[in-house]
């Protein structure tokens, strides 16, 4: 779950009242948020780096709020406040509008065909006559970061660039060039670098090094120029220093470059809906025109309001309540989904704003209605579904056997299904290629290289970890191993195995032999060649720990 950190007092000022921690926690619970932590900058630094580093850090109380992963409109203070105020009926949801420039042509962003090879899509918009304070500026930067982390999938899908429009002049060109041909002074640097030099420079930057791989090996890197050749940015890595935003910036040019155009539009919409609050004409966004390589043009931001019709009967039926159409329309409006009774039966027309890209089906609307009604106000009912239960036969048999084995004096172990290649091969005197094991592509350590093909290594490791315990150790496990199987759709299957181990100063093979006999007795298998089970010595191999190897042959255990 993404976490948003907001200054408590700023939050309360914006909400128009103060809350106790408990009251705010309650409000969060109802709205689907979680007040995860109450802390301060000083406390955070103290905890992470030690008390001495924390002196001089801010004491201001911070609320860390967990937000559902699909609510991009709640990732900043502005969005949280707006959502909560509408939820509490303190205000109406604002109406976001795309407007034409007061005079002249809209800003243009021209995409050239070279970008197709690396990062084909781009959208743009302008925030006109905006006023920043330090807090608003911090929030502006923070939201970009959060969006980059979440919906932008760490900038790989979308990257946001924000620029002081008064320092640059359009039309802007979004193109892609070989790294050696790109040269500019990036943000927070004092001299110019080529793109190639920047890739090496940022290899040690703790923040930026994670994004280099997105374009590093490409023949061309994306870059945005203004009409005078000034570099706005080299997405998704870094913006140019020339067009950087400051507290004095009045006009902002926002561009989003992307590999997923749907996400780019959502991200742009989020940025402008959240911060157009601070424009001279609040909640208006000046359009920008994007020109594609084939000459087609498109105006952004989309700021689309989508309408969907559903019946109050649908909502009542799915939730299990019985509210009037008017009440439901009111409840939905509280969730920023402005709704009206159309008059056609129990039909409600719901308007889904651009901030609610998470609403893609009527069931999303229905959930919001239930949230506004209050989940804990819904009466419990018991489903009348009549069914007779069946157990999975192999599980049933396992349960029966486990108890008998414990009665026979053995203790149950529960070992890991993942292990190293050595565990199932070398240590048992086998070659890994003979084991039919399933291999894992991205193990973090050797312990996760393969899925076990036998329960024996796990039990032996359990003995090793517990060898100081009083002897003898008598352990068993009935669980699944994994084997390759071409007849299955995924190419592998589980196989239920039973394994037992006896550990003492003397090997006690007869104990294990006795346990095997007991198990066969419980499964009604006679000790007889042919029509029962028998034991024979295995050829050749000796186990790593010495001792005998045997194979117990028996007829089917498939009961």
């Amino acid at each position: 779950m993404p976490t948003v950190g907001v200054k408590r007092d700023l939050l309360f000022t914006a909400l128009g009242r103060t809350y106790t921690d408990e009251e705010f926690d309650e409000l969060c619970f109802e709205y689907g948020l979680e007040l995860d932590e109450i802390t301060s900058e000083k406390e955070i630094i103290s905890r992470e780096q030690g008390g001495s580093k924390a002196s001089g850090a801010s004491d201001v109380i911070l609320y860390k709020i967990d937000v559902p992963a699909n609510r991009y409109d709640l990732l900043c203070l502005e969005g949280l406040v707006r959502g909560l105020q509408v939820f509490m009926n303190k205000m109406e949801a604002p109406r976001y509008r795309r407007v034409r420039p007061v005079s002249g042509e809209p800003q243009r962003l021209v995409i050239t065909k070279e970008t197709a090879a690396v990062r084909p899509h781009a959208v743009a918009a302008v925030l006109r006559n905006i006023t920043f304070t330090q807090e608003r500026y911090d929030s502006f930067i923070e939201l970009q970061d959060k969006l980059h982390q979440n919906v932008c999938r760490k900038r790989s899908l979308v990257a946001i660039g924000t620029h002081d429009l008064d320092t640059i002049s359009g039309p802007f060109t979004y193109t892609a060039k070989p790294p050696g041909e790109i040269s500019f002074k990036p943000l927070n640097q004092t001299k110019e670098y080529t793109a190639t030099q920047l890739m090496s420079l940022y290899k040690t930057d703790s923040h930026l090094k994670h994004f280099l791989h997105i374009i590093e090996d490409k023949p061309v890197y994306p870059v945005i120029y203004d009409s005078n050749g000034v570099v706005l940015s080299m997405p998704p890595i870094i913006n140019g220093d020339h067009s950087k935003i400051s507290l004095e910036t009045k006009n902002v040019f926002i561009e989003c470059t992307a590999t997923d155009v749907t996400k780019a539009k959502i991200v742009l919409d989020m940025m402008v809906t959240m911060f157009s609050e601070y424009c001279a004409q609040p909640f208006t966004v000046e359009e920008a025109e994007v020109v594609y390589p084939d000459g087609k043009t498109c105006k952004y931001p989309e700021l689309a309001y989508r309408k969907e019709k559903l019946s109050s009967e649908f909502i009542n039926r799915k939730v299990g309540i019985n509210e009037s159409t008017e009440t439901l329309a009111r409840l939905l409006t509280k969730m920023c989904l402005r709704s009206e009774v159309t008059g056609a039966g129990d039909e409600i027309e719901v308007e889904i704003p651009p901030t609610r890209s998470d609403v893609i089906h009527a069931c999303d609307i229905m959930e919001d209605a239930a949230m506004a009604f209050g989940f804990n106000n819904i009466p419990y009912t018991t489903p009348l579904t009549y069914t007779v239960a069946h157990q999975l036969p192999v599980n049933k048999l396992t349960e029966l056997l486990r108890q008998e084995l414990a009665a026979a004096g053995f203790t149950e172990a529960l070992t890991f299904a993942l292990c190293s290649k050595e565990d199932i091969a070398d240590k048992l005197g086998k070659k890994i290629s003979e084991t039919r094991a399933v291999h894992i592509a991205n193990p973090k350590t050797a312990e996760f290289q393969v899925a076990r093909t036998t329960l024996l290594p796990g039990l032996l490791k359990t003995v090793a970890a517990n060898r100081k315990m009083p002897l003898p150790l008598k352990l068993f496990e009935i669980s699944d191993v994994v084997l390759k199987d071409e007849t299955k759709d995924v190419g592998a299957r589980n196989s239920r195995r039973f394994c037992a181990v006896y550990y003492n100063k003397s090997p006690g093979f007869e104990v294990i032999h006795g346990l095997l006999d007991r198990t066969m007795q419980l499964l009604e298998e006679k000790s007889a060649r042919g029509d029962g089970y028998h034991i024979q010595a295995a050829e050749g191999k000796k186990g790593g720990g010495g001792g005998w190897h045997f194979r117990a042959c028996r007829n089917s255990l498939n009961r």
Partner: protein
Amino acid sequence: MTSCWSVQLISAELRSSKHWELSGEGTEIAEQGSHEARVFGSIPPQGLTQSDLMKLSFGKIGFSKAMSSKWIRVDKAHEGGPRVFRTVESIEDQVREKLLLVQRGNSSQLEEKEKNELKKRKLLSEVTVKSYWITKGSSFSTTITKQETELTPEMIASGSWKEKKFKPYNFQAMGVAPDCGHMHPLMKVRTQFRQIFLEMGFTEMPTNNFIESSFWNFDSLFQPQQHPARDQHDTFFLSDPALAHDFPQDYLERVKKVHSEGGYGSQGYKYAWKVEEAQKNILRTHTTAVSARMLYKLAQQEKFTPVKYFSIDRVFRNETLDATHLAEFHQIEGVVADRGLTLGDLMGILHAFFTKLGITKLRFKPAYNPYTEPSMEVFSYHEGLKKWVEVGNSGVFRPEMLLPMGLPEDVSVIAWGLSLERPTMIKYGINNIRELVGHKVNLQMVYDSPVCRLES
């Protein structure tokens, strides 16, 4: 005495008393005076060289004490070496006085502080005397009969047991521990949960397949291919066998469409869905993948029948490990598919399920899962911690998941899940998951763990 006492030949009362006694050194001082007084006494009017003084047996200890009491002084610059002189005419040997008091039995005249000081100097010690006052017991006799410890077959055969006295059984000690096997606590809890589901009429799903394709684990559940959970960091991908085959082709096409274009009343995610992503084999991240397979199978039936399914089995996550998280753990899942199920029904069934665990106070919080809408986190009130704690996750499966399978439109599927390890660790008071699961298990804990009664 103890054996006489135990058969009530005598009765004994334990009394203890304390008194102060002089140590050996203390006795010496009581007779000859303290070291420091003797030092004082051995210095003639013209003084004594320090080296000579130190040669005396009481010299070393006495010197420093006499100095600190200011009875003597040292002239370091004196010719012939440092010389010790008296500073006062006469002294009172208080230490000797106090010790004499104790010797005479008048230790009560001294304050505790004074006695403890002398104790520190090892001149006094506090002695406890335990004494038994013995009187005749209820079975007093002047002859002692030997007591038998055990009845033997010979005694029974000969009838001699009638005249024997038997030693009473010692109930204070522990008995002989039976030589038994034990079941693993996590499996004991699993058995109980399994029992609860069976009692509620839920059928066990075939979850014996750890390897799953991304298609069933993610795509069929309407989890988009760009979702973070499908990352290398969170999921174990396979290198061999790397890809799955044999998907129900028309179903796959419908899944592709609902992701990339929408349909079934949905806007969809509007991204380019790739079959190569769906083919990637993984270690399943949840047993919901099996629920998806079962629901698809249900949808292929001629006629829809309502079902209740459950599973308790292993899942795998490639996340950061810590004291409460491992790469593999067990997930408990319950699923109900029927016509017209409501959110209220989901709450009702959760209530019934958790009541069987002894949890009756529940609260629901709106949450988010890619494949359920509405989704709810389930909280219960913990009397000990005095707060609400999360006990599970639940939701109603999305139409984008159910309709492409072919389930009728009026069929709702509700589901919920929780981990098996968490309630087990709480029930058995285990803080580190590695002591419970895996080879580093605390075997003593396994031997000693009680039966699993979930409702208490």
